[in-house]
């Protein structure tokens, strides 16, 4: 599949500090890619370079084969952007705001504006001043302005900030729908890991300005088991002898083992006279993986990886 967006060696240096260091990333049509990273990792800077708010110091952003560096206007005409809270002109109605942004794109008709308003379900209040809108309404309006020109690529920075659970769910379904029906490539940055987990097909993780991991969410997850038994040293010795990666977790261990290995392990435990309290499948959440990858938080020494 041909990527919609390619970041090629994208770099940003401020003073002598490398904020973003040679980032390479491709985004494909119909796919929702999550963008994760701890605070200060360079998520926002990367996104701002992709939408023309910041100038890169090296590398390039290619959108449908067009380099933003060479042809900013044509490249960006395929991009829809929501950067953090969509700040609109509060003193104008939602409709006037949309007209304002529509005028900055080529070929957005009145019918298209009405169509988008229907899509985001704002027909009833579109002629009221934005100042009177709730945050949820403003988010919808923000989405509407990003969709006006039928972008091939939608980029969202913390899009669900301030939405209630129902709103988030609706938003998620909506993104999924446009990604699938219109083949739009979506790039979402968020701190809300559970959110990303539900929304994305693929995640890219950035730390200290470097891309440290890209993975497909649909990939069959490695299976983990939680084993609690005493004495601990003996348990660990046995597990290591089985050739398994062992990780201390709560009162026991996490092992990266396949289902069919488990009965054998339990048998050997019994044979050795160990006291077994619990053996249960363990599902690592994205949060665990994220913290593991970025080394944040209080994760015990890891033997795995």
């Amino acid at each position: 599949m041909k990527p919609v967006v390619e970041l090629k060696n994208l770099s940003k240096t401020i003073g002598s500090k490398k904020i973003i260091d040679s980032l390479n990333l491709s985004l494909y049509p119909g796919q929702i890619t999550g963008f994760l990273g701890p605070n200060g990792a360079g998520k926002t800077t990367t996104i701002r370079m992709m939408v023309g708010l910041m100038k890169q110091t090296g590398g390039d952003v290619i959108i449908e084969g067009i380099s933003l560096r060479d042809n900013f206007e044509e490249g960006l005409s395929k991009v829809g952007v929501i950067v953090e809270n969509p700040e609109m002109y509060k003193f104008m109605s939602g409709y006037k705001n949309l007209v304002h942004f529509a005028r900055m794109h080529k070929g957005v008709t009145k019918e298209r504006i009405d169509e988008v308003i229907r899509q985001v379900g704002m027909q009833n209040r579109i002629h009221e001043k934005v100042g009177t809108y709730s945050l949820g309404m403003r988010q919808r309006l923000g989405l509407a302005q990003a969709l006006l020109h039928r972008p091939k690529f939608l980029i969202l920075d913390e899009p669900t900030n301030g939405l209630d659970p129902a709103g988030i769910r609706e938003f998620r379904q909506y993104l999924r729908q446009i990604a699938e029906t219109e083949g739009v490539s979506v790039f979402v940055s968020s701190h809300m890991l559970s959110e990303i987990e539900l929304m994305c097909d693929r995640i890219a993780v950035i730390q200290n300005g470097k891309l440290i991991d890209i993975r497909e969410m649909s990939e069959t997850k490695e299976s983990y088991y939680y084993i609690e038994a005493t004495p601990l040293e003996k348990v660990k010795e046995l597990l290591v002898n089985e050739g398994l990666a062992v990780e201390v977790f709560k009162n026991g261990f996490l092992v990266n083992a396949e289902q069919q290995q488990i009965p054998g392990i339990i048998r050997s435990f019994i044979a050795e006279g160990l006291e077994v309290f619990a053996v249960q499948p363990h599902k690592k959440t994205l949060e665990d993986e994220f913290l593991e990858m970025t080394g944040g938080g209080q994760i015990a020494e890891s033997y795995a990886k």
Partner: protein
Amino acid sequence: MLNLMRNEWMKLWHKKGTWVMVAILIVITAGMMALMKWISIQDSNFDNGSGLSVEVQAESIPDWHEGVQGDLASIQTRLADDSLTKSERKKLEGEEKVAEYRLANNIEPEDHFSREGMIKQPADIGGTVLLLTVIVAAGIVASEFSQGTIKMLLTRPVKRWKILTSKFLTVNLFGILLMVIGYIVYILLAMILFKSGTGQDLVWNGKEVVEASVWGQSLYMLLLSFGSVFVTSTFAFAVGSVFRSSSLAIGLSLFIYFTGTTISAMLSKYEVAKYLLFTHMDLTQFETGMMLVEDITMPFSLTVLAVYIVVFLVISYSTFVKRDVTA
């Protein structure tokens, strides 16, 4: 570009403040005219009420003859001075011709407070328009930053210089509109409040003495007074777009507008005063003759102003186009 300007124009008029500004302009202009009328009434009361009998007044009617004769005498003494520059001499000679013509043909000079006299000096509205245009110029870029809408504005397939240009043109269009509104109010009130005068305004056109065109002169003064509006609002626009603070831009611009003339007057003895912005901002000085610094000419002033404008705009454009938007 037209669409961008329509956007700016739409945003401008959706702010209540803009309408308030127009109202302020109309009120201030009307107030000034009322004040002028009051002063003119006081003046004529003073003439009438100074205890002179009707006969004495009748005798004092040819007063203007004495006035013109006095002017003529002083012009002639000044002309006798050899140290005059060429342009000064030419100007004085013109005045001499006009004064002689008046006396010879018995033509009364125009009263300052006549309708024609008022129409010819619409420059006063320039000050009010300047104040209001500076407020708009200072805020048009800065407010996008303070509202956070700059992110929405710059993530469009439109180059930044185009956005800035649309804003600059909108500011000037707004300034022109205010000038026109102020002028219409001014002229209407001049027509209503003041009577047509008996005198005539005469000028020497190089060959002969002719009557000055009322409307030509009026529009010319209006154009000249727009000069300072344009320069000051460009300055406010530049400061506003560089520092993203409209209050700083308004403060600095008004500071320059009010203290600039004082600074120029203080430095008028020195060569450097000729190259200061303040010396040239008020273009009406060439018509009223109240020059801040001697021996500067209109083309020279226009050149100096043009250089300053270019500098302001270059600074404004280069920072706006390069800026990394983080807010």
